[in-house]
């Protein structure tokens, strides 16, 4: 099995082949290993990864339909306006592999890992990147993108190397799976990213649900409960009826607040 390993300099990708120093056969190099044993002559070799760049890809574990359903779940959640589930519309959905540089370096004798976007982007969540969980596999010519667009790096690795501390252990380019969603709500278009590995949602700017009606309902119930009890004790127990009224009024009004417009509430 052949593995293609590349280096990037001045934005040009070079392929590097690791070969057995004894018999010259190509060496299989697995992610996360520094040693490789030649399958022909059995000689173990140390793989120097400081210069080479390994290409990895994190497969999608969330389908496009599932990403729509995740979006729908999010719109029904407490962060979004309550009519959002019913009225928000997905206008575009793109399945993409987004490139990220991953630097493993030694800083003051300690291993540090840094991730940086390998492509200029305004997408939410792409600047404070953490590689999401997933089974990283080597990315090579045989890798199937499965209908996803592979976004290629447009930022040179050198532009980050200068700012990083320490000395390199290895560096890699990780393609990670994302769904880029555009949706319309209340006449405005918004963007969001759903990570295609764990389903995490990243947004920078999204419609918010106001808490005013929640506070108002509880304040009303509180006032009725307070006045009813106080007057019930001080003047006549008839005022305790206000407490009961508070519970009923609260229940009815709170239900109106919670109820989703299309009856989608449970």
């Amino acid at each position, binding site marked *: 099995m052949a593995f293609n390993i590349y280096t990037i300099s001045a934005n040009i990708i070079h392929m590097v082949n690791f070969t057995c120093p004894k018999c010259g056969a190509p060496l299989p190099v697995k992610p996360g*290993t*520094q*040693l*490789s*044993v030649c399958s022909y002559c059995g000689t*173990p070799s140390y793989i120097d990864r400081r210069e080479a760049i390994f290409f990895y890809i994190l497969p999608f574990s969330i389908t496009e339909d599932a990403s729509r359903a995740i979006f729908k779940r999010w719109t029904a959640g407490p962060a979004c306006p309550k009519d959002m589930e019913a009225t928000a519309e997905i206008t575009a959905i793109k399945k993409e592999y987004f490139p990220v540089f991953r630097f493993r370096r030694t800083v003051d004798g300690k291993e540090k890992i840094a991730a940086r976007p390998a492509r200029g982007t305004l997408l939410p969540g792409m600047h404070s990147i953490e590689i999401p969980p997933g089974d990283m596999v080597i990315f090579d010519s045989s890798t199937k993108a499965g209908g996803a667009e592979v976004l290629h790096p447009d930022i040179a690795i050198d532009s980050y190397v200068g700012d990083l501390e320490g000395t390199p252990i290895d560096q890699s380019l990780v393609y990670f799976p994302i769904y880029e969603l555009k949706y319309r709500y209340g006449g405005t278009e918004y963007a969001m990213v759903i990570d295609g590995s764990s389903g995490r949602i990243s947004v920078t700017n999204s419609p918010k649900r106001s808490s005013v009606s929640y506070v108002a309902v509880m304040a009303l119930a509180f006032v009725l409960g307070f006045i009813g009890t106080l007057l019930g004790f001080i003047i006549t127990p008839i005022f305790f009826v206000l407490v009961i009224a508070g519970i009923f009024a609260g229940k009815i009004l709170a239900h109106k607040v919670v109820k989703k417009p299309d009856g989608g509430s449970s």
Partner: protein
Amino acid sequence: MSIVLQPLKCLACGAPLKSKERDLMLICEHCGSLSLFADGKTSPVEFAIVKPTVEEKDPLWYVPFWVVNADVIVHREKISGGGISRAVTGQKQMRGTRDFYICAADAVPEEYARVWNMELTINQPEFTTIPEFKNGSRMVMTMEKDTAGNNAEFIFLRYEAEIPGTLQELDYDFIVKSAKVLYLPAYKKPTSYMLGVLNGK
């Protein structure tokens, strides 16, 4: 293929080292010299074997200790209460340069090791050394050199906390100067351990 086993060799004569037990002190079958396993390799180590001063019928073991020589400089200390009892009992101060004893064998239960460590560190005994593990066996050493210094510092703090009075504030420097290995004789009784020095304390 992610794990590598590197054979260890004797520092003195280069012969491959053999051992039946996971001992950080490795003895060469060939030339008899002892070397210390630390940071994945063998290195030379200063060590001595202490002559027993008490005789018992029980099996004799030579227990490895790290003897950490350190400077204790206390800049400021505040203790609440306990001053009188300290004056009466003549409690020694743990200050200046001294040897800290840290039992380096897992085989000795912590309940004995911690008592020995404190006794030896307080008493700073003088020992007669012998050239070999006479009439007894060498106990396996499990504690690494790196941790001996911190263990020594904790003994100092333990002492300051355990003496009468309640420790309130402490500002000090603890400077480790050297560490060597000392094998102290101990008798393994049916249900306990007894040191073969310090009159069996």
